[in-house]
């Protein structure tokens, strides 16, 4: 019996085209940002790292919001697709968060003179990364599919609610003791580069989430098929 699985390539032609287009767009936006932005008076060409760092940070919050919304959707509808989507967004979000932290650290060393500082945003971001990792760890520890979906949805929701409180707490923690430096106003040439790259990163995120989601669906279908075969249920439709 033929099911949808037979006609569901993980990486169809349109997705590959999308991938290359996204990559080309990213290269173009980076080139534009580099071209139009003069070297910063203090940082020099170091500011170029911000065209990856800042959009990465923005899009990782988009990813986290996706996890939150998809988690709620799963608990309401009990459709496994929402769970698979949340997991895909969480995986890409974790990579983006890790990358942003790493790049920030590389930027911080020559600019601030330290690899790490107990700054509210860095700390919030680190906690965000830890919450992402614990979300993925939970998923890898739970074998039962339905249970994994319910549990990780709960963890995704609680984790999302926690992030603004983390930010508030570490901000007070720092400001009650010392003055906090505020980001100075940014010149137009820098803003254009940032905004363009924010879109580039959003597209990169979307491409990877789509690719990851398709793979997750196929894995889910194969798993269900295998279970049915083991139980002798025969070929049932899944997803």
């Amino acid at each position: 019996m033929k099911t949808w699985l037979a006609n569901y390539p993980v990486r169809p032609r349109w997705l590959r085209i999308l991938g290359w287009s996204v990559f080309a767009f990213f290269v173009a936006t980076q080139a534009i940002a580099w071209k139009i932005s003069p070297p910063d008076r203090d940082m020099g060409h170091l500011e170029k790292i911000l065209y990856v760092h800042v959009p990465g940070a923005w899009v990782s919050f988009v990813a986290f919001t996706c996890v939150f919304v998809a988690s709620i959707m799963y608990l309401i509808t009990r459709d496994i697709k929402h769970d698979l989507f949340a997991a895909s967004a969480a995986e890409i979000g974790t990579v983006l968060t890790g990358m942003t932290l790493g790049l920030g650290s590389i930027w911080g060393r020559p600019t601030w003179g330290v690899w790490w500082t107990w700054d509210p945003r860095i700390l919030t971001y680190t906690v965000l990364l830890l919450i992402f990792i614990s979300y993925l760890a939970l998923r890898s520890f739970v074998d039962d599919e339905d249970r994994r979906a319910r549990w990780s949805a709960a963890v995704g929701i609680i984790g999302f609610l926690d992030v603004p409180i983390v930010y508030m707490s570490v901000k007070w923690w720092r400001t009650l003791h010392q003055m906090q430096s505020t980001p100075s106003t940014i010149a137009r040439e820098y803003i254009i580069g940032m905004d363009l790259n924010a879109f580039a990163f959003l597209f990169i995120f979307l491409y990877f989430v789509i690719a990851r989601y398709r793979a997750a669906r196929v894995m889910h279908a194969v798993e269900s098929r295998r279970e049915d075969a083991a139980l002798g249920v025969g070929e049932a439709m899944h997803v």
Partner: protein
Amino acid sequence: MGRETRRILAIALKDLTAERRTKANFNGVLFFAVLILLMFGFALGPDADALRDASAGVLWLTVLFGGVLAFNRSYEMELENGALDALLMYPGDRKSIYLGKLIANLAFVLLVEVLLVPMAVVLYNLPVNPRMAPVLLVLLLGTIGFVTLGTFYAAMASRVRAREVLLPLLLFPVLVPLLVAAVQATRAIMTGDVMGDSHAWFKLLVVYDVIFLVASYFAFEYVIEE
């Protein structure tokens, strides 16, 4: 007393009775907590002033490290002999199971603290006077938030392999604001609270407790169902 309230208290009482009869878990957690308190002393001492400065943070980390051992236990005993299935089959709202276990765990951790805090006062040479009374409120508010999420996450962690690792992995990142607020409030009170800093931290603790109590209360049903 409403039916739900009776149900909640029955579950809390059941858990506490089981604990009272064996005491194995309580003694273990208490001894472990005292041990951590001593180990921190060895690591940070012997300078008495340095120890006193660090004491608020040390006390809270001790409570977190010790308490995290207690939560899995409260579900593990349900897993033996399929007791959890029986518990789920009882009529009534499953949220009562969460609140019942929450109360039992709260009593457990607070009792550990009752014995632990005097020990910290002695070991770290902390001042004891009426001005310090608000610290008890910090301890209560912080413990409520801690136990709320601990009881919630343990409902999942206790039922997978590597439960000892998974629970702190899930729990500690979300506890960061609670740890910061509780430690800072305690420190502010210990140093006389001349700036009135502790009010902001009290507010944060209350907000934290309320948000996660509500969120866990409603999410628990999805976590416990089979």
